[in-house]
């Protein structure tokens, strides 16, 4: 297995500016997702798992803000060399990769789905936004096939000719638009490393023109307003619908033709979660972020969803970033895992290594406090509770609850060191700095 990086964050700080004060949710988070792996992020609530991935998607909501740090994506070979830094990119750029290259399954399917839109409308958005060109091409191909079957000169055939013409116009406009955006992105990528004033100005220019770029549709825009001519859209909708139905079928949803017409409240929790997964997978993303995809589901349904994600990992997606608080799921699903605590990365290792040989006292405590299948003696527990991040503890944020606290832990934030190859830990017990026991 190669160890090509797909996405990484470097010293990420995300803060929330609330009335009570600044919540320092992320305190310099470094995570690396490699190509082809399932990467787990575990920790208790409030440890910053969700904020980390929301930062990576650039969907941190106000009053939150990414204050410093870099998020680098290596999405295709051309960018392989140094990756794209996305914290500096514009919102329109993010829109073009969200749902297409990286997408996310949200925690609560009930809240992630829009209650007033049918399943079809919610799933088809991704196709219409990211895959318009392909959709139009397929529609045209279908219409061609249909025409060759029909007799020449019939009146319905004439309607079809107009519709096909309009679709071709739209296709050309979409292609021109895509080409233009691609050129802008390329130039931006070339300019990314340089930071003199001239290139800064050029960058600002490019970002602006990218923001304002729209497909120029000309006559199609007029046709869309005329009821009779607007019918050409129906063909397109039928193609999109066929794709949605097919997608739902591959996700193991029974009777997809019927399900697409339903509204979220008519679906059970497991089914709704499958729809959320369908939305995330519509465009075959390279990286799928699953934010506690099973936390509100029953064990039997959870098993179904986990099995589905594993299966998709084998077939469609390259990497999965799996967030959970359930260590059992981590053991089952992930290849590598990072344990987070109060906005800090405590430990990163392969799953096997972490369960066999946890180093950080928090990871040790966390593993011991989970009821096992063979639990003979009393459960170990970590005293105290997760700290308030408005006034986080000094030094190592775990020190107030740590059974192996030393003097230095109160003063200094521990560096992350590679204890054994591939096993990283941020704890003064392993940094070599001896502070003496408190």
């Amino acid at each position, binding site marked *: 297995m190669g160890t090509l990086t797909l996405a990484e964050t470097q010293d990420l700080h995300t803060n929330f500016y609330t009335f009570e004060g600044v919540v320092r949710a992320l305190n310099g988070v470094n995570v690396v997702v490699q190509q082809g792996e399932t990467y787990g992020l575990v920790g208790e609530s409030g440890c910053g798992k969700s904020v980390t991935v929301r930062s990576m998607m650039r969907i941190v909501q106000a009053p939150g803000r990414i204050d410093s740090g870099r998020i680098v994506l290596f999405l295709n070979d051309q960018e392989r060399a140094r990756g794209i830094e996305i914290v500096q990119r514009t919102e329109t750029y993010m829109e073009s990769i969200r749902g297409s290259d990286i997408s996310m399954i949200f925690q609560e399917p009930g809240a992630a789905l829009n209650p007033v839109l049918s399943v079809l409308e919610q799933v088809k958005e991704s196709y219409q936004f990211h895959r318009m060109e392909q959709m139009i091409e397929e529609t045209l191909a279908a219409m061609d096939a249909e025409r060759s079957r029909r007799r020449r000169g019939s009146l319905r055939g004439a309607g079809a000719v107009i519709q096909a013409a309009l679709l071709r116009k739209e296709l050309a406009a979409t292609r021109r638009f895509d080409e233009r955006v691609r050129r802008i992105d390329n130039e931006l990528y070339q300019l990314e490393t340089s930071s003199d004033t001239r290139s800064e100005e050029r960058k600002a220019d490019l970002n602006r023109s990218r923001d304002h770029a729209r497909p120029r549709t000309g006559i199609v825009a007029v046709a869309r307003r005329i009821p009779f001519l607007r019918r050409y859209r129906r063909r397109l909708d039928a193609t999109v619908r066929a794709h949605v139905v097919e997608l739902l079928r591959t996700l193991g949803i029974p009777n997809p033709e019927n399900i697409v017409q339903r509204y979220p409240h008519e679906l059970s929790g497991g*089914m709704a979660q499958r729809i959320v997964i369908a939305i995330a997978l519509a465009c075959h993303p390279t990286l799928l972020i699953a934010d506690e995809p099973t936390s509100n589901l*029953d064990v*039997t349904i959870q*098993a179904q969803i*986990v099995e589905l994600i594993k299966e998709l990992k084998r077939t469609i997606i390259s990497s999965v970033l799996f967030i959970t608080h359930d260590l059992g799921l981590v053991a089952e699903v992930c290849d590598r895992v990072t344990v987070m605590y109060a906005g800090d990365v405590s430990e990163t290792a392969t799953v096997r290594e972490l369960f066999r040989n946890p180093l950080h006292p928090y990871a040790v405590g966390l593993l011991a406090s989970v*009821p*096992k*299948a063979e639990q003979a003696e009393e459960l170990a527990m970590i005293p105290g509770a997760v700290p308030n991040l408005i006034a986080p503890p000094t030094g190592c944020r775990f020190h107030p609850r740590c059974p192996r606290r030393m003097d230095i832990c109160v003063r200094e934030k521990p560096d992350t060191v590679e204890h054994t190859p591939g096993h990283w830990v941020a704890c003064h017990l392993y940094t070599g700095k001896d502070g003496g026991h408190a």
Partner: protein
Amino acid sequence: MHENLIDVRDLKKYYPVTGGVFRRRIADVKAVDGVDLAMRKGECLGLVGESGCGKTTLGKTILRLQTATAGRIYFGQDGGKVEEVEAMLHSADAQARARAGAMLKGMDLNRMSGRNLLALRQRIQIVFQDPTNSLDPRMLVKHIVAEPLTAQRLVKTRDVDARVRELLGIVGLTADHLMRYPHEFSGGQRQRIAIARALATNPQFILMDEPTSALDVSVQAQILNLLKRLQEEFRLTYLFVTHHLLVVKYISNRIAVMYLGRIAEMGPTAEIFARPLHPYTKALLSAIPVPDPETKREKIILTGDVPNPINPPAGCRFHPRCAHVREICRTVEPQLESVDGGERKVACHRWREL
């Protein structure tokens, strides 16, 4: 049989579904549909099942927070007397049945009222799932914990404060916490307050309705250990409702598995985990993610969801999702039968073959 603290017979709880112009009753949600359950003094019975299977309703009906549609709940009654009344109820003699009905007024928790019920309420308590919602945000901790004491007039007014302090001490909180509001506490501490409140009346029985599902793992361990300690210290009987099977395994002596309003299987914890008999229990157990990457087990993945309890499947309720379904499963509803002549029971036509 004489040591049973709670004896539940043929308990049913239906919720009406109304419809039409006159809001007539057109169907019933059969949340609990014929459950027999006995709990011994000092044991912890784990009640597991998927959401919507009726486990919370069963718990609340036993506490009479909901009044059952049918069935009897004997709490702290003499076992011999219970058997006698049950025999009379099922006898062919109409007079005996009428006499049993009269006797039930004083015995059946479901038929009690007034002073009898109030007295019994002292001995049964509940800890709810989410401590954020079960504690009144406008009450101080000391008032929250004192409320059962004053409502039941258990201690003199001037002794209330001392008793509240004692209770907080028992659950691991201090007197500093007395004058605070619930929002000032973390989830684990709130659950401790809820436990202190439940302990206030010196109950014999506490219903634990998913007490740790809203908590983080490290805090969950603290609460589970606390509950275990309290059970030994005060000889409490728990009905522990949860969907987290490893938690149940840690804390309970016996387990009852519910599916769609009925009990599918019950027995001692170790035996159920070692040798599940009902196909549903097997699937449930295999679906638990085990926190150990070295063990890779074969999983039984159930298809579909729990059916609608308004219209449960005919025959065995599990048959549409069961891999071992036979003709008889579709038509005849299996009864809970004893496996070894003892307390290991299962409701499945084919448990012997599987």
